[in-house]
């Protein structure tokens, strides 16, 4: 099948430090592709380049046949994205968040209305559409973000650590939902994770990234076979020489507190 995401020798340097260091990969249309690596490996930097918000230092890139640097608007139409941290407007309702997104993507009103209702029903948020997002739980916000990203029927769905910070039960729900989507909506899914078991369970294909370089690529089975590891965890340690590092607390929590004080 044709590749819908293609990267060759992609590099991103920050002040001489290569956060992404000559990586090449291709993602076929319709698959679920997992980008696995520890924090700071270059996953988010890669996603930013794929989604037009960061220009690569060098390399060749095509998203749905277009160059993200030269044709950003065409590329942006082709994908939906769920960021690592929430990106909803918490002062608006679920419905308003969806509506704002639909208008930004220039969907005609009837399409917007119909799509919005179908998607909110799909994730069980239709009854809560009039509630402010700030009243939602972490799992509800994540569900809302995922369907928001799907509203314009993108060909690719980028998910940056879609389940970080969620409890195991909610994580399962989210993944079941995403797998269903990839089937029913025929959308290509590109996700990053540092959870080994998620990559193994969900992805058709995995690229392992560490220190800005892709060190292995293939199905979970192939990676395990290649390293003679019994689990993907063992395969990862065999490939990188270390286990996956623990997650750090984000400075955004501190900001949240500051805002509350300021707003008072």
């Amino acid at each position, binding site marked *: 099948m044709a590749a819908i995401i293609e990267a060759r020798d992609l590099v991103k340097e920050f002040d001489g430090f290569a956060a992404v260091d000559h990586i090449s990969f291709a993602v076929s249309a319709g698959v679920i592709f997992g980008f696995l690596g520890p924090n700071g490996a270059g996953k988010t930097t890669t996603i*930013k380049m794929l*989604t*037009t*918000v*960061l220009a690569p230092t060098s390399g060749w890139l095509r998203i749905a046949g277009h160059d993200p640097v030269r044709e950003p*608007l*065409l590329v*942006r*139409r082709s*994908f939906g*994205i769920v*960021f690592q*941290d*929430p*990106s*909803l*407007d*918490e*002062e*608006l309702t679920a419905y*308003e968040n969806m*509506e*704002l*997104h639909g*208008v*930004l*993507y*220039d969907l005609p009103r009837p399409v917007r209305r119909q799509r919005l209702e179908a998607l909110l029903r799909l994730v069980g948020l239709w009854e809560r559409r009039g509630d402010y997002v700030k009243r939602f739980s972490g799992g509800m916000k994540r569900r809302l973000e995922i369907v928001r990203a799907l509203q314009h029927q993108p060909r690719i769905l980028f998910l940056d650590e879609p389940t970080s910070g969620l409890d195991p039960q909610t994580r399962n729900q989210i993944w079941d939902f995403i797998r269903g989507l990839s089937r029913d909506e025929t959308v290509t899914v590109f996700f990053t994770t540092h959870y080994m078991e998620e990559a193994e369970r969900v992805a058709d294909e995995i690229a392992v990234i560490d220190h800005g370089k892709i060190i292995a690529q293939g199905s979970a089975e192939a990676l395990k076979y290649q390293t003679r590891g019994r689990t993907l965890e063992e395969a990862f340690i065999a490939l990188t020489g270390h286990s996956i590092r623990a997650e750090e607390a984000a400075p*955004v929590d501190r*900001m*949240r507190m*500051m*805002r509350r004080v*300021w*707003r*008072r």
Partner: protein
Amino acid sequence: MKAVYILWLRQLKRYSRSRTRVIGSLGQPTLFLLTLGYGFGPIFARAGAGDYLQFLAPGIVTMGILFSAVFSGIEIIWDRQFGFLKATLVAPVSRFEIVLGRTLGGATVALIQGAIVFVVCLIAGFRVVHPLLLPLAVAFMVLIAVFCTAIGTVVGSVLHDMQGFQLIMNFIVLPLFFFSSALFPLDGLAKPLQIAVRLNPLTYGVDGLRGALSRGFALGVVTDLAVLAALAAVLLAIGAYLFSRIEL
């Protein structure tokens, strides 16, 4: 252009839902109006300069717009921290439309805020001298709002977090206000202060608003309009440029 509209609407919704913000930002102008207006009133009158409240009120309306507008612009920083900015930057709309929608939204909010301060001034005893010039007063308020929101856009596009908040307050917002003719008349000032006040764009806004509402223009209505409109356009352009260069 639909994108501009929906982002403008978002700012208005957020504003109208935040009652604390509406009330909170009224506190300072009201305090200034009541203490300075009534406090210095007798001295001002004794010096033969007329009714101080009539002089001060347009300056206080400007203050209300200034504070509200700069902070509407700075909301970019919050949106960056809370992620909403990312969501708009990956949407298939140009950065220019985004920054335009945001700035117009912020300016509209500031304008409403200014109108509320104006009503407070009326309650405090301010009287409009030339009702026919009210449309001109509104035009000045719009220009002040756009100018100040653009300042906020510039700052918000450059700063990444609210650590610089005090810096903005003490080195941009308060000097703009105090070094304008909001609190004192232009004539008879010491030379250095005179120069500072003349160089301050907000002086032209205050003068225009005061001219239209109560006391006549000290600098000339055409100068006021031209300077303010030109600087608002320049700052809008700078803001749009800096916003377009935001990397996440």
